[in-house]
């Protein structure tokens, strides 16, 4: 079988060349600190545990992938042994047959998955893939039969010999020689991505690694303008995309038909790296309302712009909900990329749409989003006489009020929380005038300068006082204080109010309540659930007060955004629908009379839905009602 040996040999060499060729484009990016050794050592765990954990959420695909990927990897190694190096071993041959059979069955699953055609899966090279897999498996299955002693060996120029050679040529071209360029690219780039992941800490972490990294504001260029401004391992990440469309399915903006599709976004970023890059070869769903084929880019061309690779509306449609990141089997960091791009738009171009520039200007001039006087943050609580930490000096719980304190709706939540804390005799205080906006909104909008300014000043204020922990009813505040402030020297224990209330219920500081038979569904705020992993405490409270709790189709870590994050309400990019309307429809489907929320933004977004709908209450409000009824 000399020709087959040659074929394999050539394909391996071509494959290596192609891999280097492909890798070259990643190095158009910026240097990044990467620990290869650590990455390599951890690779098996990263792949078999962390990645599998994500893939396994879709059992069909998981099974399919295990067969195809496992079968192919083993088969490839054995093929090299058996057919390239001609190791004559029946055992190896038999093993090879088993793995090739497994791969063949997997290829059948791949084909079945694509039929009937599904919108989230890309066509193009991917439509060919099951047949390429099949060709590879069939070719080597036939070629291995003689080696396993099952049939007599056949000559290369016999009919079966030629069939084998042709099939092997097809299979090896796709699966070996041009693997780094075709749809199988994901396996190669994906493996490299896992080893060099830009958020390496994410692998195996107990809690989501979701905090944004501070930007060096003295850098010559702030944020990402061109593909070459990304870190090289971010570019590698984009290349790892397998176009599975899982992110597309979960993206709230895509669901509401805003012009965003995270899958196309990643594909556009991957394609923009090539000189003369375009999206002509993209064969998946487009950004809603926009057709494929208008994107143009290059390694040193601006990515964002009308007529560039990505339209600004796409960039600003994202709510930073992290649903795509949560789902992506290639562990691509969409939100980091989006924020990097936004940083350039905000800091270098001042091109932030909608009302966002006004909000940012108010933040800079008043330290509040609404341009209110800092002193008026306590206006709503005039009758509650909240103790100030500046007069107390120290306390157990420092209550962070947030922007919700300026909003009539959320003052009800805060009022409920304060009354519950009083009921439980918590020693708490507020910062009053000293509390500035956390800067969370500014940061999601890319205005890192305003964020860092606020963060530094807040950190300095917090350093002045003694308290055991910070509690807030706003998950956005919770996230920035807990995950993003430590970089500015503020290391404190931070609790979301549901976590505190759950604790107070458990330790008996709050009384047991009578069961409330209202059918209630809980909407997870992204910044509490996906960003911080806290999906238990709010449910525990609801269960403790005995409501009839029903879950929406999407809940917990895979919940769907209300549309209120990432500054989306202020950039207000138009879509066919509104994200909260889509989410409310899911709530209506449960038949619940009440949607329990745990975030001021969710409350506002969901209350903005018109027409008959369930009532919206914060978990704290529901708990207070129950406690007062008891």
């Amino acid at each position, binding site marked *: 079988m000399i020709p087959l040996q040659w074929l394999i040999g050539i394909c391996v060499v071509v494959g290596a060349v192609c891999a280097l060729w492909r890798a070259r484009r990643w190095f158009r990016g910026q240097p990044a600190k990467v620990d290869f050794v650590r990455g390599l050592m951890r690779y098996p765990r990263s792949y078999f545990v962390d990645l599998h954990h994500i893939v396994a959420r879709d059992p069909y695909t998981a099974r399919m992938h295990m067969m195809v990927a496992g079968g192919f990897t083993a088969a490839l190694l054995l093929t090299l042994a058996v057919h390239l190096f001609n190791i004559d071993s029946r055992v190896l041959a038999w093993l090879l047959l088993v793995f090739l059979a497994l791969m063949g069955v997997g290829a059948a699953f791949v084909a079945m998955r694509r039929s009937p055609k599904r919108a989230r899966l890309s066509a193009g090279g991917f439509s060919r893939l099951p047949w390429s897999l099949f060709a590879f498996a069939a070719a080597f299955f036939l070629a291995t039969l003689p080696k396993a002693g099952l049939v007599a060996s056949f000559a290369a120029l016999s009919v079966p010999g030629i069939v084998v050679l042709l099939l092997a040529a097809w299979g090896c071209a796709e699966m070996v020689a041009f693997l780094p360029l075709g749809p199988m690219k994901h396996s190669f780039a994906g493996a490299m991505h896992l080893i060099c992941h830009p958020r390496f800490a994410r692998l195996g972490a107990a809690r989501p690694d979701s905090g944004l990294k501070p930007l060096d*504001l003295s850098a010559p*260029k*702030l944020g990402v303008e061109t593909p070459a401004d990304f870190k090289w391992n971010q570019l590698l990440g984009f290349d790892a995309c397998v176009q599975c469309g899982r992110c597309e399915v979960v993206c709230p903006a895509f669901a509401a038909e805003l012009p965003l599709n995270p899958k196309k976004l990643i594909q556009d970023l991957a394609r923009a790296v090539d000189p003369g890059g375009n999206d002509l070869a993209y064969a998946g769903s487009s950004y809603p309302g926009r057709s494929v084929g208008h994107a143009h880019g290059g390694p040193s061309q601006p990515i964002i712009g009308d007529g560039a690779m990505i339209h600004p509306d796409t960039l600003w449609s994202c709510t930073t909900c992290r649903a795509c990141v949560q789902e992506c089997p290639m562990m691509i960091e969409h939100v980091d990329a989006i924020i990097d791009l936004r940083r350039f738009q*905000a*800091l*270098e*171009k*001042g*091109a*932030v749409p909608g009302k966002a*520039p006004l909000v*940012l*200007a108010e933040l*800079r*001039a*008043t*330290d509040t989003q609404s*341009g*209110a*006087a*800092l002193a008026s943050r306590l206006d709503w609580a005039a009758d509650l006489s909240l103790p100030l930490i500046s007069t107390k000096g120290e306390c157990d719980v420092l209550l962070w009020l947030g922007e919700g304190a300026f909003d009539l709706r959320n003052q009800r939540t805060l009022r409920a929380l304060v009354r519950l804390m009083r009921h439980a005799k918590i020693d708490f205080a507020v910062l009053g005038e000293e509390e500035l906006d956390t800067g969370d909104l500014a940061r999601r909008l890319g*205005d*890192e*300068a*305003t964020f860092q300014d606020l963060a530094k000043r807040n950190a300095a204020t917090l350093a002045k006082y003694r308290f055991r922990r910070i509690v807030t009813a706003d998950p956005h505040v919770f996230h920035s204080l807990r995950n993003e402030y430590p970089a500015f020297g503020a290391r404190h224990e931070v609790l979301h109010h549901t976590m505190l209330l759950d604790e107070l219920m458990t330790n008996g500081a709050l009384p047991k309540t009578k069961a409330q038979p209202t059918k209630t569904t809980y909407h997870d705020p992204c910044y509490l659930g996906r960003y911080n992993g806290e999906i238990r405490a709010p449910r525990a409270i609801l269960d403790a007060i005995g409501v009839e709790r029903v879950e929406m189709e999407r809940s917990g870590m895979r919940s769907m955004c209300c549309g209120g994050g990432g500054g989306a309400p202020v950039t207000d990019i138009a879509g066919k629908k509104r994200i909260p309307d889509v989410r409310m429809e899911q709530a209506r489907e449960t038949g619940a009379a009440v949607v329990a929320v745990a975030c001021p933004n969710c409350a506002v977004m969901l209350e903005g839905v018109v027409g008959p709908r369930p009532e919206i209450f914060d978990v704290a409000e529901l708990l207070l009602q129950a406690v007062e009824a008891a």
Partner: protein
Amino acid sequence: MAIDVAVLVSVGRHPVSGRARRADADARAVELALSIAGANVRLIHAGDPGEPALRDYLGMGANTMTVLRMAPEADPVLPLSAHLSSMRPQIVLMGTRAEGGEDSGLVPYLVAQALEVPLVPGIVSLSLAGERAEMLQGLPRGRRRSLAASLPLVATVPVMAPAPRMSAFGLARRGTIEVKDVTAAADEARAAWTEGPARRRPKRIKVMKAASAADRVRAVTEMAAGKGKVLQNLPPDEAAKAIFDYLVAEGIVQAKP
């Protein structure tokens, strides 16, 4: 043909926090200047070059600003006029009035007088047709007047002009400030003024005419209670009449006698 557009900018104050920032009307003047095709926009400020709020203007896209260094409350008119006379820009723009000091709105008039060029107040757009500027002047209630004048000219930009673009941090940081020392006379007249916090004027009471004391009290207390009149169970014609009468009484619509 590039034309020189000078924009005089001042340091504004946020109405609630009082913090220094770009002045709203001046920022709109910069925006308008940047929107003029082929304009070579130069920013000029008379005051303290160290004031960080000045960078807000640089963040809008003009790379340099000339600051005529003088005491913040000195009279800027002479140094500004002198600088402009040597620079000879075709167009001088500025906000209708500042928001951080006297806010007299007189500076543009004094500058125009010193330069001996026409002044056009309250413009919301400007385009060039040869040596002439064609402008729209903003009037109350959304009306616009079309004006034309030959260059050079001084024009002021009101807060109803198009909103200014966001100031970008990176541009603001990189922009350069050229400092020119000038001598400015201290504002002596100003020394005799006394300054206090703005006193909120009581809201004008609606029933002014033939008002008895009792009427006025009633009007004010009704306003305070925020209680409007609620009409229930009226046939549509009567309800419509009540609304129309209200609109006429409030002078919103005029009825034919």
